């Protein structure tokens, strides 16, 4: 009795190992295939991005991406911000929440880096507001910011703090519903989300 079960268990383990090896190989070759198909127009670029394989070695939080969900910068626990919390602090968000806000289109995105970095590539539709030139850009963006429901600030990602400085300046200026997208360009590009180059948003 046990012997037959032992055979089954060993068989099941072998099955898992074989499937794992094949799955990893398939994952490895699927991205180039999808990219080629997108280049040839067989499938859309969006589809190639969404359905491509994942990077096996990169952990999901290797670049200090914050926790999933929304948490206040000051570390105190609390539910996500919303219309019921008009006086919320600056909220740290991760790349997925940033994408949600991007898709919803109610927020205005600000790239807090210098113009040179902004022109090399920024989140599609994001405006450039270098953190060290807060006052000179303030008049330029005042109307736009007033119209937006919320503000998302980001910089290159990792340990950059330009976006933090910009967010704090905005908060001090009286703006609310400010989101700090900590993953920044690094996480955004890593996920293959839309970007633009040049000086236009």
């Amino acid at each position, binding site marked *: 009795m046990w012997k037959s079960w032992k055979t089954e268990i060993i068989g099941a383990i072998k099955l898992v190992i074989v*499937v794992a090896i094949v799955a990893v190989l*398939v994952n490895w070759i699927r991205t180039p295939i999808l990219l080629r198909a997108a280049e040839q127009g067989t499938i859309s670029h969006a589809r190639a991005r969404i359905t491509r394989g994942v990077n096996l070695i990169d952990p999901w939080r290797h670049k200090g991406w914050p926790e999933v969900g929304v948490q206040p910068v000051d570390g105190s626990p609390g539910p996500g911000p919303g219309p019921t919390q008009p006086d919320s602090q600056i909220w740290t968000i991760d790349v997925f929440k940033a994408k949600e806000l991007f898709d919803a289109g109610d927020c205005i995105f600000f790239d807090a880096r210098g113009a040179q970095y902004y022109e090399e590539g920024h989140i599609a539709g994001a405006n450039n507001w270098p953190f060290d030139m807060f006052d000179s850009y303030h008049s330029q963006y005042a109307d736009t910011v007033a119209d937006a429901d919320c503000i998302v600030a980001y910089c290159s990602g990792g340990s950059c703090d330009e976006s933090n400085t910009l967010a704090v300046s905005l908060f001090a200026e009286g703006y609310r519903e400010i989101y700090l997208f900590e993953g920044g360009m690094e996480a955004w590009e890593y996920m293959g989300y839309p970007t633009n180059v040049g000086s236009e948003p």
Partner: protein
Amino acid sequence: MSDATEGGARCSTPSAVPCIVYHLLRILLGALFLVASLEKIERPWDFGRAIYAYSILVGPFAYLISPAAIVMPALEFVCGALLVINLKVRQAALAILAMNVVFIAAIVSVIARGLDIECGCGLDVGFLGTQADAGALIRDLVILAVSLVILLAPQSTGRKT
């Protein structure tokens, strides 16, 4: 299917009813895993994101999220297919059982921590719900029971080894 297995593989008297139930369960469970795996195989990023949201693989264990997002759906697909085509049924059922234990543990931990996250179970059909909540837990317990039935079915039902 072939009747070469010992104990008689065909659903004939006197064990016709358990035999038919067994094969029905086998095909249903297999089809369920097969269909549920497809979306996850197509969109490994979304599945990885779902695993990430469980906040179980944190810190250095985050290195396991990508491998899990690749291997688990593939395993579900293969095991589902094996069940449907009546091949290596017990091994496939064992693997499904093991996966289900992991799923149940994960959902229990999510409920215990009061997280409100997506299940990432595949098959996110409206009436089944899409969140990792008590509904998902009950679903997984039912699947666990079915896989146990398939695993422990006596030879007389025509089970293939």
